[in-house]
């Protein structure tokens, strides 16, 4: 990574500075940028703004009357919608419950893979499996693991004499923890790979010097390793938190929000509101509330990053 930074500094460009080719240079970027810029503006920025506007309307699917502005009525309704706030709370529990273990487990695995161990290649190869799999397949696969009779989890528990007749995904108490485990499994490899790349940038001499000075493993981690991987760790954790909060497919396949809404993430709630009940305006308002939540997470991340700017 370091060489990349070095070659990428804006190098002085002797030929570009001369007056004649300047015209070509000034027009060149626009010509190169437009093919991507137009679709982004038309199909991404535009729709997102349109989506935010929809939150202030009574837009519904398949209605013949024209859509009307209703101001903040959707948001007022939302404020009293206890089902939505319950879903929002579940979303936060899920996002934090997945992101934190994901990070800790990934950090452990990355530290292990950074050591000179045998079987390292196998772990690296296996780590791509959850990353590459379609989320729907991850969901299906864990349904098979959690299956009451034919699942391996209950069979293992039976062998160990620990019961083993639990219906993990339908139990009111077990459903959310069960889907959180799946979330951790699915997202761990990506985090591991990012942290591992960060670790490979740690100056090895520093590590050795600290060991010679008699610093223990924890001290070496805190003073040498952590400062080196901190930027990567912060970035991947912020992204994981956002991705997890907005996640949909895994839980849709595992429980479809059940039992009794115990795993109904905000995305599932908004999806049903929009595409089952056709309440586009109301669902857009939910989307806006989710954006607000995510913005707070991003802000926290950015503050953390700025504060760590000196040693990062």
């Amino acid at each position, binding site marked *: 990574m370091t060489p990349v930074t070095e070659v990428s500094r804006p190098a002085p460009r002797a030929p570009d500075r001369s007056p004649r080719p300047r015209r070509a240079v000034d027009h060149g*970027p626009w010509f190169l940028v437009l*093919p991507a810029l137009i679709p982004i503006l038309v199909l991404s920025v535009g729709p997102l703004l349109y989506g935010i506007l929809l939150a202030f309307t009574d837009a519904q699917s398949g209605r013949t009357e024209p859509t009307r502005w209703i101001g903040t009525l959707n948001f007022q309704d939302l404020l009293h919608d206890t089902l939505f706030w319950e879903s929002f709370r579940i979303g936060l529990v899920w996002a934090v419950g997945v992101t934190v273990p994901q990070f800790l487990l990934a950090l452990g695995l990355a530290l292990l893979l950074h050591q000179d161990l045998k079987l390292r290649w196998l772990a690296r190869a296996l780590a791509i499996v959850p990353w590459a799999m379609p989320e729907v397949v991850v969901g299906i696969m864990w349904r098979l*693991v959690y299956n009451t009779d034919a699942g391996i989890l209950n069979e293992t528990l039976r062998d160990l004499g620990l019961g083993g007749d639990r219906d993990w995904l339908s139990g009111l108490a077990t459903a959310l923890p069960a889907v959180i485990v799946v979330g951790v499994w699915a997202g761990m490899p990506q985090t591991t790979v990012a942290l591992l790349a960060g670790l490979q940038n740690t100056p090895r001499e520093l590590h050795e010097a600290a060991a010679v000075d008699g610093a223990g493993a924890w001290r070496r981690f805190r003073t040498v390793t952590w400062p080196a991987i901190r930027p990567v760790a912060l970035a991947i954790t912020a992204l994981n938190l956002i991705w997890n909060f907005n996640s949909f497919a895994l839980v849709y396949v595992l429980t479809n929000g059940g039992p009794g809404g115990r795993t109904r993430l905000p995305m599932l709630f908004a999806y049903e509101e929009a595409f089952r009940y056709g309440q*586009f305006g109301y669902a857009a308002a939910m989307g806006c509330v989710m954006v607000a939540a995510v913005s707070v997470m991003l802000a926290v991340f950015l503050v953390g990053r700025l504060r760590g700017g000196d040693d990062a």
Partner: protein
Amino acid sequence: MRTRKSARAGQYAALLAYLAFLALPFLWLVSTAFKPPRELAGLHPTWIPQDPTLANFRQAFDEQPLLRAALNSLLAAFSAAVVAVVLATPMAYVMARRRTALTRVASGWVVVSQAFPFVLLIIPLFLVLKNLRLIDSVPGLVMVYVVWALPFALWMLTGYVRAVPAELEEAAAVDGAGRLRILVSVTAPLLAPGIAATALFAFVTAWNEFFFALVLLKTPEKQTLPVVLTHFIGAEGVADLGPLAAAAFLATLPSLVVFAIIQRRITSGMLAGAVKN
């Protein structure tokens, strides 16, 4: 580095635990895919099928239009990957080589776009596509996939362009090569592996994508593989486990193969894109 024997043993134990956690669910999927119905109904499932069979695969194809769905997925993912990379490469080049207000806004957008919940994007897109009569069609889905793939394609490609030394282009310019000539004969060959990796990554993410496909495609013959896979699970959550496992296993194979090819490049590309200067 000196590590004591006991510490080493602990490290290996931890590594084995990780290997088990990562691998066992997948092995269970494979095992289930090859089990006959009798074994799946029995109470004591085993890791290795006692009486392995391919019947689940045949039944999976009989129950759902898997081949049709795979073709739809292939078409959608391939088109989206090609279009996204063709559109993104020139812009990524500019973003890597120049720092203007526009490129700064564009990099900001790449990050911000990750934060929006898809539902806020899909409701307006749904209405727009409906007006264009592109709902329930693979081309409409491709449009959505392209827009969705552009941010990370830009991100990765910017990193790959940065890795091509600007000095090489300057040297060619000094030798009198024109702008286009430099791009075609100096930059493009060095960038080609990065472009290929980005396209393959976009292909896999589109192949795996579920949410947009679920919302946009209603006719069974037009649905993509992930959507069709969910049809194996009935309304009450009851599923025919054997065919479900078999179909899920088959749907994963292309992703695994492509990922195995590009894994290293993906990692370096993502992180190179992350290096700001």
